């Protein structure tokens, strides 16, 4: 095991995140703040509470998940695509680094970036909405699982992409719509029955539902369902990303 190599890659990913801090760290924090003000505090004051908390407090965990999903996918997909595009990834490919170390390094780099963003939003929640997670263990566990899931998807799409625009396909046509209808803004119990049933087919719904439980202690489908679903999706995505890097897919000719 090349621990120094792995740590070097993680450091490199963090360095990259801080070099483009105005693109990748401040925007999700500021946009969440705006969501909280506009939807949570302004409009939310006219909405009666959901799951026993105010609408703004209900909204916050969904917003955290939204930024975690976006941040984790964006970090790994753009980083690995750029490294492929500039051939800088060859620095690692000719070095004694295994596929496992490369995938873990990229994923861990994404997890660290999203932890930073998620915790900044969590602190905003404490200061502005007086809400804190009720289960810190679950907060961390779901955060890690979801960050790993979307970082792995980022690696998969970052490897498949032929041009930078390809990376946005998953975000624009799948992630963003599914996040918005996946329970960020409302409980599925408030949706028409048909739409509520359709929501159960939305994989992102389970990530938000499981994470919200760490704040409100309540869930639409129950933690016993959402957590294993998230865990299974994460394991599958990580395994596919690992298999692609191990096979040298679009990395080694």
């Amino acid at each position, binding site marked *: 095991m*090349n*621990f*120094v*190599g792995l*740590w*070097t*890659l993680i*450091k*490199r990913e963090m*360095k*990259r995140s801080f*070099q483009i801090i105005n693109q990748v760290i401040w925007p999700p924090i500021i946009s969440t703040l705006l969501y909280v003000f506009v939807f949570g505090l302004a409009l939310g004051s006219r909405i009666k509470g959901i799951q026993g908390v105010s609408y703004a407090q209900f909204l916050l965990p969904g917003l955290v998940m939204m930024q975690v999903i976006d941040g984790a996918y964006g970090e790994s997909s753009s980083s690995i695509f*750029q*490294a492929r595009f*500039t*051939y*800088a990834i*060859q*620095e*690692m*490919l*000719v*070095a*004694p*680094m*295994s596929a496992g170390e490369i995938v873990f390094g990229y994923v861990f780099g994404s997890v660290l970036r999203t932890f930073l963003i998620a915790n900044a939003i969590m602190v905003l929640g404490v200061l502005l909405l007086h809400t804190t997670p009720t289960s810190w263990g679950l907060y961390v566990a779901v955060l890690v699982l979801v960050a790993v899931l979307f970082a792995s998807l980022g690696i998969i799409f970052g490897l498949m992409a032929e041009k930078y625009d390809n990376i946005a396909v998953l975000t624009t046509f799948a992630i963003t719509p599914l996040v918005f209808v996946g329970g960020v803004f409302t409980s599925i119990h408030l949706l028409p029955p048909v739409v509520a049933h359709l929501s159960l087919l939305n994989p992102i719904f389970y990530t938000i539902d499981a994470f919200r439980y760490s704040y409100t202690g309540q869930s639409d489908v129950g933690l016993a369902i959402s957590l294993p679903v998230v865990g299974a999706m994460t394991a599958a995505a990580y395994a596919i990303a690992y298999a692609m890097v191990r096979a*040298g897919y679009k990395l*080694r*000719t």
Partner: protein
Amino acid sequence: MADAPHQAPAIAVHHLVKRYGDATAVNGISFAVERGDFFGFLGPNGAGKTTTINAIVGLARVDGGRIEVFGRDVSTAWRKARRLIGLAPQEYNFDRYLRVREILFYQAGYYGLRPRDVTTRVDALLERFGLSAKADAFVAQLSGGMKRRLTLARALVHDPQIVILDEPTAGVDVELRLELWETLRALRREGKTIVLTTHYIEEAEALCERIGIIESGRMVALETTEGLLRSHARDELTITLAHPLQAPPPMLAHFSARLDPENACRLRFERLSPLQLSEALALLGREGIDVEAVNTERATLQDVFLALTGRGAR
């Protein structure tokens, strides 16, 4: 290197095959680079040089054959094999988020070396390659020559036994080319095994002790540079006469004299010993043929290359 198998060559390539779809880029080539050798890998563009290099360093998956580095199979003992090689690729592939000094530290890190273990070496490499003043600059701020030197410094940061350079002087000016040649000679004196691909034939002739010529994925020559010149090219001697001739003088027939088709004053000979030259001059004098000059043209690797591949290097 204590645990390296004894006597194994630095690089041994056995029946290497690499295909891209229906095209066979490398078609069963075998060769060995001995320890401490300065090996030149020549071939026209698309002949399979870079593909072979990529297979050795792990950037290309092979479809057949085996590659060993100091006796270690690059596909099974890849960690140990890769630690022994430093690659200076043709393309600049630096991490654009890192500064010059960081590029060296991070590359060492990928090879498992902690920053504190390589600080002295990084500083020495920056000094050696004239990059100390640019240590905190980003690559975009470097000149082409500096980027080329950084490529070499990065290849050396983990102190490899083998340095592989893919077209190291492509696109650089004459001054830098000579400077890089001197650096490569110094590395050779330090005991490194050096493998060089180039399409500058004179570069290979000036630097390399052994040469492999690859054409359409097949090795068409593999010899010492001297051996190649001896076996595939000949020095040529020209005697320039005061007056043109209609045909080569019959008394010089046993020296295989030819009349230059473009200049009837020139008689050309291959492999004429000094004794044979004096005899030829005496025979010409006896026949009253005045001689104005005698010139020898040394055979070059370019002649060998053209003879073996039937085309120029580019």
